[in-house]
């Protein structure tokens, strides 16, 4: 292929064309040539092309285009606000609550465990050989249907200044649901800022004590919590291919990026130490990277046993993900944990989660 000519030749007066042409179609004075030479987003893409093509094979192109396109949001209903009208309005626009849909999927055709008194947790047995899944019906997250690319309007405060809903990646409620919080439990959110998943946790209205932590984790409270969420810093894949600002692939952050798996491992181990025997830890990231997902989890389980004497059991998340098949596009054969793969028809994620139960 012949070399591209210098784009400067294109610098010309475009005034007369403007009124004829929709703005975006107007002759440009500059094409790609003027962009920074090594934008971090490009570096991220190169890195992902190299690693994810191997990891995801034929699925990678579909995931790649989804990462590069507008993501889909979910509207997490704020139970503490007066939002019935707002929610009804969203429903009239075609939104549906993915949690109640999942509950429907679960109860349909399956033997649902009966409840004598209403509680904040509903239990579902998906199939006879699968363990029971419990979902908090208090968590409501509304999304537009598959293939629908409508956007939510920003939520407006009610009479008391409370927002009716929060917009977030709908897939990020999954790690919280996986945490399976029961009435009256104590929960640690180890990497809480900016607080998205903490909000989801609060919606359950089941938590007796919620400890929110970020950055400085002193190892003071061992063997304490019923539930620990370890939502670690990661390569934030979607952000990294789209935004230059605060991009972990920028040259200056190379070291930090290289140290991520180590930091993630340390954080997960800290979470494992903080949970009580019998309690649950959910590890989650918003990256597709096996190095940051499966390998970290595997290594943590190994180190916990070898060095801390803590045995962990990896819980099966399929009963949970089966309930959300219609909403999310899960990676087909994960060998450890579950991964929501972005797809244009359901552009949520990526979200990785792995659930560990501490045995002793």
């Amino acid at each position: 292929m012949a070399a591209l000519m210098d784009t400067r030749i294109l610098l010309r007066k475009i005034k007369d064309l403007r009124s004829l042409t929709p703005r975006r179609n107007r002759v440009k004075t500059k094409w790609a040539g003027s962009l920074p030479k090594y934008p971090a987003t490009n570096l991220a893409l190169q890195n992902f092309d190299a690693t994810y093509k191997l990891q995801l094979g034929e699925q990678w192109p579909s995931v790649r285009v989804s990462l590069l396109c507008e993501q889909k949001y979910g509207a997490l209903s704020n139970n503490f606000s007066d939002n019935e009208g707002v929610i009804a309005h969203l429903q009239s626009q075609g939104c549906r609550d993915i949690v109640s849909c999942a509950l429907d999927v679960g109860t349909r055709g399956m033997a649902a465990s009966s409840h004598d008194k209403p509680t904040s947790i509903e239990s579902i047995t998906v199939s006879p050989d699968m363990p029971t899944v419990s979902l908090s019906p208090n968590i409501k997250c509304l999304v537009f249907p598959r293939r629908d690319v409508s956007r939510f309007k920003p939520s407006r405060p009610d009479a008391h200044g409370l927002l009716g809903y929060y917009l977030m990646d709908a897939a990020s409620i999954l790690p919280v649901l996986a945490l399976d919080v029961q009435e009256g439990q104590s929960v640690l959110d180890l990497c809480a800022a900016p607080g998205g998943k903490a909000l989801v946790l609060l919606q359950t209205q089941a938590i007796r004590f919620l400890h929110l932590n970020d950055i400085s984790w002193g190892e003071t409270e061992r063997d304490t919590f019923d539930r620990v969420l370890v939502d670690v810093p990661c390569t934030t894949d979607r952000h990294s291919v789209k935004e230059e600002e605060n991009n972990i692939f920028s040259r200056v952050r190379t070291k930090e990026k290289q140290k991520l798996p180590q930091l993630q491992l340390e954080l997960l181990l800290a979470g494992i130490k903080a949970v009580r025997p019998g309690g649950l830890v959910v590890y989650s990231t918003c990256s597709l990277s096996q190095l940051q997902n499966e390998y970290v989890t595997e290594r943590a389980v190994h180190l916990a046993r070898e060095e801390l004497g803590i045995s962990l059991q990896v819980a099966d998340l399929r009963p949970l993900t089966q309930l959300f098949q219609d909403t999310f596009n899960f990676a087909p054969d994960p060998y450890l944990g579950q991964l929501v793969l972005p797809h244009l028809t359901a552009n949520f994620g990526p979200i990785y989660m792995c659930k560990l139960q501490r045995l002793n």
Partner: protein
Amino acid sequence: MSFLPGWHVLRWTLRSATCTVLSRRQNIPQQPVMSTCRLYCSTDRRTNQPSLSPKQLQPGRDLSLQALLDMGFTDAQADQILEQANRSRGSKIENAASMLMTLFVLGLNTSSVVKVLQKCPEVMYVNGTHLQQRIDNLRRLGLLEGSLQRVVSHYPPILTLPLKRVNMVARFFREKCAFTVQQVTEILRDSPAVLQTDLGQLEYKFQYAYFRIGVRQPEMVKSKLFRVTLDEVRCRHSFLERRGLYQTPDKKGQTCIINPKLNDFLNVPEETFLNDIAKATQEEFEVFQKLMAKEWQEEDDEQERDTGADSDDDDDDEEEEEEEDLKSGYSKRK
């Protein structure tokens, strides 16, 4: 044969088109009479060999049903043409006869003429002389027998465009986009609608292909780039690019992956594009198109905000824009 003065269009050279003239509704003879006349085209203005019957060629006469039947139209076709002609409120109706004859001379048969008028009723009102000039001009631009008739049948509005416009677009392609004369002919042949497209849009599409897709003029022509809407071009290209299947070549023309040819992803039906090139589902592409439309809309809105109020007060003065800066160009590569 008598030849009417002033109808200089009828300076034809012989060409091998035939026109079957069916006369019906005539008193005598009762049976339809078939007569064949040779038709001529006007590549050489000095030659003077008309051979159509004067009755058919008479320009000033009313466009009567009989005249149309004499020309070989069926009853239904004739009625249709008359109805159309009458809509023009009489004033220019005398053009119709000369216009029709010019089309016959071009080599179109009655049914093609009817189709032309159906597709583009405005042709009805084009003065015969102008029509002939426009046809001559298209020949001058390289549309030769066969191609010329196909273009006219396929895209009759081409006959309604002033010479000035047509030549300006041809010149734009040559001078601004560095297409060769031959390539311009091919563009006009394959995508005559460019003649009615805003030049700014054409240039944008060209630039998009040149800089973003990274293809040269011959490939643009081969893939019939100008037949595809800009949105479609960008959708298919961006879809491949975002899937990691297409890269803009660098300054040396190199890429890390092997790009599919523009011709293979643009000049094929969507199904082929999706199955063979993008390897994606139709569902994905459908959503992608919706998302792209939104992205572009937002780009527009953003630019709107950036450029502010001063941007919309310029008039569209094609001529001026044409004169200006035509010298800047793109390297020609064959």
